[in-house]
């Protein structure tokens, strides 16, 4: 089991971090998805192709590397379809499709993934997906479609005929969703639905983003506690603040350990993956929201203002926590896997 970062992974982290620091600082995040940032992110850093197999032009990396990248995009609250495209890429590595994988690796195609089934006939699909992540920004939807011959994975051009998209604002100002209605929309069948592994990997990927969100939130409030004065003392010198920050640090340490473990399991130990993935969502999702919440509260009144960034982390944390469904599903899954 490998719970620490390799030198290469540390370099990856550093390069993504320093890129985002200049290309997508927090004031810019509020302006939403910027295609130019994505172009550079994918071009200069090759992030979109990180987990795409080498034969399709990607780097063929595993989830341990992906987690490092997602932690940084999470910490930066990167707007737009990066997580959605990553979700789709994770699915596509299980039903490889040259056109899509190559397009994603080259940064030409943004995509999103539905966990919900739609109905299909092999050539077209129909159905309504109530909340599709980054559904307005993604070019392609990858989704399971029930056909006469069983459930297959299909790709649907979201800007194509037979598709109606409605933008949905959400709590998370940095990443929207869309309602997608398909009525005879042309689709391409990619292959039969893979039996396992996609959902677990999505859990791990999301947990990596959440780890980044919580780390950035903790960093922000620790920095503030070192410069904000009340009653003639830095607020970080009060045990009321210090002890809460120490508890938040403890959560972060555990969350990071779990994310590393789950990513390692995804790459190296398939039998452990389901339990590790459920553990990751059950622990990290909650810890991320708690840390983001307390980071906001410890800012005092300024943390409640629209102008301050604290609420961006708080809202991303809450949106992420419920992204895969009510969080209790992960606990229920754990109970099942533990044969309780």
């Amino acid at each position, binding site marked *: 089991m490998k719970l620490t970062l390799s030198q290469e992974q540390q370099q990856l982290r550093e390069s993504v971090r320093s890129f985002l620091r200049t290309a997508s600082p927090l004031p810019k995040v509020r302006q939403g998805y910027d295609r130019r940032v994505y172009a550079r992110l994918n071009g200069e850093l090759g992030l979109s192709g990180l987990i795409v197999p080498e034969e399709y032009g990607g780097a063929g990396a595993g989830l341990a590397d992906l987690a490092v990248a997602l932690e940084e995009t999470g910490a930066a609250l990167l707007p737009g379809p990066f997580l959605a495209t990553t979700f789709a890429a994770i699915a596509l590595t299980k039903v490889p499709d040259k056109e899509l994988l190559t397009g994603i690796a080259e940064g030409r195609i943004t995509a999103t993934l539905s966990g919900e089934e739609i109905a299909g006939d092999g050539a077209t699909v129909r159905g309504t997906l*109530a*909340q599709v992540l980054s559904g307005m920004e993604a070019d392609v939807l990858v989704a399971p479609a029930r056909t006469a011959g069983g459930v297959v994975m299909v790709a649907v051009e979201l800007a194509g005929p037979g598709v109606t998209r409605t933008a*949905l*604002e*959400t*709590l*998370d100002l940095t990443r929207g*969703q869309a309602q997608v209605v398909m009525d005879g929309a042309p689709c391409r069948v990619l292959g039969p639905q893979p039996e396992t592994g996609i959902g677990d990997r999505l859990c791990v990927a999301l947990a990596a983003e959440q780890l980044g969100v919580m780390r950035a939130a903790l960093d922000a409030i620790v920095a*503030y506690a*070192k*410069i*904000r*004065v*009340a*009653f*003639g*003392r*830095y607020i970080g010198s*009060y045990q*009321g*603040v210090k002890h809460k920050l120490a508890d938040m640090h403890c959560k972060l340490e555990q969350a990071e350990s779990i994310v590393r473990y789950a990513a390692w399991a995804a790459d190296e130990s398939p039998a452990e993956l389901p339990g590790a993935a459920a553990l990751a969502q059950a622990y990290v999702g909650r810890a991320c*929201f708690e840390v983001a*919440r307390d980071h*906001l*509260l410890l800012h*005092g*009144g*300024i*943390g*409640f*203002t*629209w*102008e*301050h960034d*604290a*609420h961006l982390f*708080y*809202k991303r944390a*809450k*949106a992420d*926590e*419920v*992204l895969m*469904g*009510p*969080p*209790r599903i992960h*606990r*229920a899954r754990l109970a099942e896997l533990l044969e309780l």
Partner: protein
Amino acid sequence: MDLAEYRRAARAWLQENVPADEPPEGDAITRAKHFMAKLYDAGYSGITWPKQWGGQGLTQAEERAFAAEARDFTLPTYVFSIGLGMTGPTVMDRGTDAQRERFLRPLLRGEEIWCQLFSEPGAGSDVASLQTRAVRDGDQWVVNGQKVWTSVAHHADWGLLLARTDVDVPKHKGLTMFVVDMHHPGVTVRPLKDMSGRANFNEIFFDNVTIPDEHRVGEVNDGWSVAVTTLLHERLSISAGVGMGGQKDNPASFEALRKAVDTSDPLVRDQLVELHIRSRALALFNQRLAQETEAGLFPGARGSAAKLLLAELTLFQADVATQLVGPESVLAGHPLAQAISLAPGMALGGGTNEIMRNIVGDRVLGLPPEPRVDKTVPFKDLKVGTQA
């Protein structure tokens, strides 16, 4: 007239005079002023205030009786709450007769709206570290600085302003209280959006705003003791309101949630039970405090425990509700998205949770105080606000 009769009469008056629905914002001020005038004419404005200054000269008993009846109505008097609950009582307690004569009756009659100008970006929990300066110039004062978290400032005619008048003495000893004309040139009111996107507060900028010395409340450099009076009245009016109603329209309340979620899941049921337990625990505590108050026992700092618990419950409710409802709870149109965005507000307004715990520890449990580094240093040498 005995108390029961007073109560019946109050109820009858309220039924007849309280507008059924709150009108939309813009017009609301005119209607609120109109309603206050009616309230005043009917003898329900300033019930315990002296007759000399426009009040009714009655007792706490009548005040409580009216408040108890009014709880079933939504009185459109929100913009007057700062004046009636905090700044008015301060002028009454600490002002000159001339100030009482000038300011109190117009407030009770709904002719003038007040706001309170204490907090600053660098002085939140620690109000006494504020930096807005008032410099004497003959028989007037010149004010420069910035205030924040000011409710109803964009409608206000007068503001109760705490400003620094001496930087060479420790921070509590160089403050003076004033009444400032909010229509004076150099006063800029800028709405401040909260994290839910609503603008319930304002920032106020003072740029060479003058105040006549006759609008000074209390002695020069004795402003902190005047502010303590105001804050005491604030705490009274907050703790009187804590836990009263409020759950009816809360999408994260037990009653709202039980209809919104799948209660066939035992884990969901248990979360609802937890919500019920915590809500009932606080509601009963608030009722006990209210019963004690009615029996003449003033709850004092224990009200801060209730405020702390309400802040925690508010966050817990919205948090658990979004967990139970899942993905759709974060859609912009969903009431829970608004609830989770507003939830931190209860913990951040009227004193943070940390301040509340200090108050409970110091004043209820009598624990030894934190050593203070800021009580003896001249203000100009003190670290304040945000700095490395």
